């Protein structure tokens, strides 16, 4: 323990007050030439030292989650990487390669057992002994299990790690599997293809600043960002309620920014913060730039296509066939059947009915009601 004392702890031990500590921090900040704007950062750094160690794994993914992460503007990623935490292993950015890189991972697992945060980008292929993703000769699933064993928290970045994303789309040739299906411990799912940068850094800082995991929903997603549908917060919502829809790309309605529902927008079935937090420092989000939501943070969204239609294809009938096509066929068949039945009834039973009518003619007067 002793070697991990923070500066604040050391000063406390030496009998200094918190006031003195703060003074020391501002002094250190001035020395560092950071100025008052950087002061809170220094305070945090000294107080929290050692910075929480982080291992960031890459499996079956496209690195867009890492790319998204570095787009964060509050906090900016340099502050996250250099002041908030210690990114001890990340194939995308780390200086070391090969066995030296692997060494970084091992050191962290040993030195900070039970204390490091594990971030996973990408799904894990389970088919055929894991041969579809190996790193340093080891299979992804082995690496995941080993690193997760002593992790304080596990975050699954993006749709790949939290629901299998594209490689998990039918026919899922490699048996791509999300993290939470492999580990027995709780996993924080941060879906999206990729997730929004500021959502990613917020989830991490939530843990660091508030000292606890954000509240999760039944699918392991932080409620903070995934409890509302894109549709519920979409600025085009009034046009949806008014029934003003884009009917074809770049038509008059598209140019007025009407609702993209009929162009297949998945906003009504997608939980994400896009319409509120927006992308790239609030610059836009898919719908604001004229394309419907693809539902990229939803489980299995690749198989909910085609994307430009409200309803998915009916499985097994080709992309042009929807539930409505099938329904219409069955409905018409029922109507035709009923009509045909009525006609044959009339032909085959005419005689019978004539007889019945004959028989039912009362012999005398009305039938008196026969109550029970």
């Amino acid at each position, binding site marked *: 323990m002793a070697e991990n004392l923070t500066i604040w702890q050391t000063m406390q031990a030496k009998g200094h007050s918190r006031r003195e500590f703060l003074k020391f921090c501002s002094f250190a900040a001035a020395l560092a030439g950071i100025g008052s704007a950087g002061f809170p950062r220094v305070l945090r750094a000294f107080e929290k030292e050692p910075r929480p160690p982080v291992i960031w794994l890459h499996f079956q993914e*496209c690195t867009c989650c890492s790319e998204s992460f570095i787009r964060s503007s509050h906090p900016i990623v340099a502050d996250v990487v*250099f002041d908030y935490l210690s990114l001890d292993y990340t*194939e995308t950015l*780390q200086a070391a390669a090969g066995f030296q*890189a692997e060494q970084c991972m091992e050191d962290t697992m040993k030195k900070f057992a039970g204390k490091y945060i594990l971030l996973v980008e990408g799904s894990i292929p389970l088919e055929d002994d894991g*041969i579809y993703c190996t790193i340093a000769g080891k299979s992804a699933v082995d690496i995941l299990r080993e690193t997760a064993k002593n992790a304080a928290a596990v975050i699954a970045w993006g749709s790949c790690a939290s629901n299998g994303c594209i490689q998990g789309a039918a026919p899922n040739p490699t048996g791509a599997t999300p993290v939470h299906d492999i580990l027995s411990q709780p996993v924080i799912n941060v879906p999206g293809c990729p997730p929004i940068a500021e959502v990613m850094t917020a989830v991490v800082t939530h843990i660091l600043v508030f000292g606890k995991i954000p509240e999760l929903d039944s699918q392991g997603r932080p409620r903070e960002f995934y409890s509302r549908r894109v549709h519920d917060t979409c600025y085009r919502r009034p046009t949806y309620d008014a029934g003003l829809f884009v009917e074809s790309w*770049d038509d008059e309605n598209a140019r007025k920014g009407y609702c993209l529902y009929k162009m297949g927008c998945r906003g009504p079935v997608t939980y994400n913060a896009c319409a509120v937090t927006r992308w790239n420092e609030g610059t*836009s989000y898919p719908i604001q730039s004229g*394309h419907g939501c693809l539902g990229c943070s939803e489980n299995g969204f690749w198989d909910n296509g085609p994307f430009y239609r409200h309803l998915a294809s009916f499985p097994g009938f080709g*992309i042009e066939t929807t539930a409505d096509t099938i329904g219409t066929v069955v409905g018409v068949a029922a109507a035709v059947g009923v009509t045909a039945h009525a006609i044959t009834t009339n032909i085959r039973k005419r005689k019978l009915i004539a007889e019945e009518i004959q028989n039912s003619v009362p012999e005398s007067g009305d039938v008196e009601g026969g109550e029970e």
Partner: protein
Amino acid sequence: MARIVVDPITRIEGHLRIEATVENGVITDAYSSGTMVRGFEKILKGRDPRDAWAFTERACGVCTTVHALASVRTVEDALGISVPKNAELIRNLMFCTQYVQDHVVHFYHLHALDWVDVVSALKADPNETSTIAKAISAWPKSSPAYFAAVQQRVKTFVESGQLGIFANGYWGHPAYKLPPAVNLLGVAHYLEALEWQKEIVKIHAIFGGKNPHPNYLVGGVPCSINLEEVNAINSERLNFVGSLIKGAIDMVEQVYLPDLLAVAGFYKDWAAVGGGLKNYLAYGDLPTRGYNQPDSFKFPRGAILDRNLDEIHEVNPRDSEEIKEYISHSWYKYSDGDDAGKHPWDGETEFNYTGPKPPYAHLNVDGKYSWLKTPRWKEHPMEVGPLARILVAYASGNDDVKEVVGEALAKLDVPVTAVFSTLGRTAARGLETRLVVRWMKEFYDDLIANIKAGDTRTFNDEKWDPNTWPATAEGVGMSEAPRGALAHWIRIKDKQIDNYQLVVPSTWNASPRDGMGQRSAYEEALIGTPVANVDQPLEILRTIHSFDPCIACAVH
């Protein structure tokens, strides 16, 4: 003789493993293996061709957007759709945005630590760094106090004992040549570039809704233009794009290029290392009069064989004899035998892993050893990427390219042949970035002029409805991704994808050797690369990083 393994190769995209034989401090043979596969080409079968861009875009989040572009072009090519002028210009702007962001990030965050010794920056005199900075550029952040603050930040960081991403780096390796003051400059700009790169991609967000993975559309672009409407691309949005372009020009001209040339000046010995293949291929891109008019492209199309810059060969991606993919050393099988080469329209993707069971120490490099297929042009291995583009353009007599290349050669005082190298590849990337930011301004001005002239169309709906499609169709969509020549091939049958094949820049460069034993670009470039210390493969990283590997792209 030592057999060294570098796995993972870090500071790249994806899962790359290099095995190399080192004799007397020099690499004599090398094997490049991609160790992750997802099966995109299998997953795409049976889907709506209009959705393919979204799928293929997810091949890679680093060069995000280029697969989407290649994909919409493929489908448009198959169905005979031409896009409105605004759509072409907006696509070009998004393309250029990608180049600038990707190349700057590559230089500072993926490649720089091969040349810049972070720890040595602690010994720098900030005054000296400031003097150097002011001498090479007008960039305003150049005061001694600024560099002192950066240095202090690094110091605090290093003294914390937690080195994070810098842990176990090859600091102090004899191949690091920069003086401390320049190292400090590199570190400062590492941080600046990290903060800047998130700005330029806002252009993607404006036109495509987000970055990474902006949205595309077969037949045009999804964003509508309406100067009378707050809900569309209007003057505010256009101004936003304009100022981002201005910022990009400043960043490239005042930071990236000066740094590149300054660093290159200390590493001229690397102009003799890592040349590798002598054949170069570029499909060309940035159309100015439609995708079907390659002569209107800013980046010209063509192939160079044997470094002969006097002859540009024509490239035809439809010819079944030109581009073929082989799997002699790849974990796949072909229905008619593994020695065959397949044109992508007839391409097959059937897994057939024959490698060792993990965990393993070595691959069986005599057999199959990678998930990448091996593409060949007329049976030749080709290098693709910035160097190939610059060479093809240079050889085609492109004035813009001649100018920037000439300037750089003069500044560094090296002959033209210096470009056939690790250093040349890294320099070519910077030089084309300079061109691309300039062109970006041109496209932007054209877009404004076109809108001003009353044309606001962004989409062509003639063939949107699948009922207008023929029963079968085939198309090819080419592009120049940041890492090189990219193309997708599609076969459409009954309104669905019948076959879809991607042949990607990093597939060309990082693939295993072919059946005839010809190495592809990475493997060839490593031959002759010096390795001072087999336990610190810094030099391997330099040459491999000069290609800017993207293995998720390469395998998909």
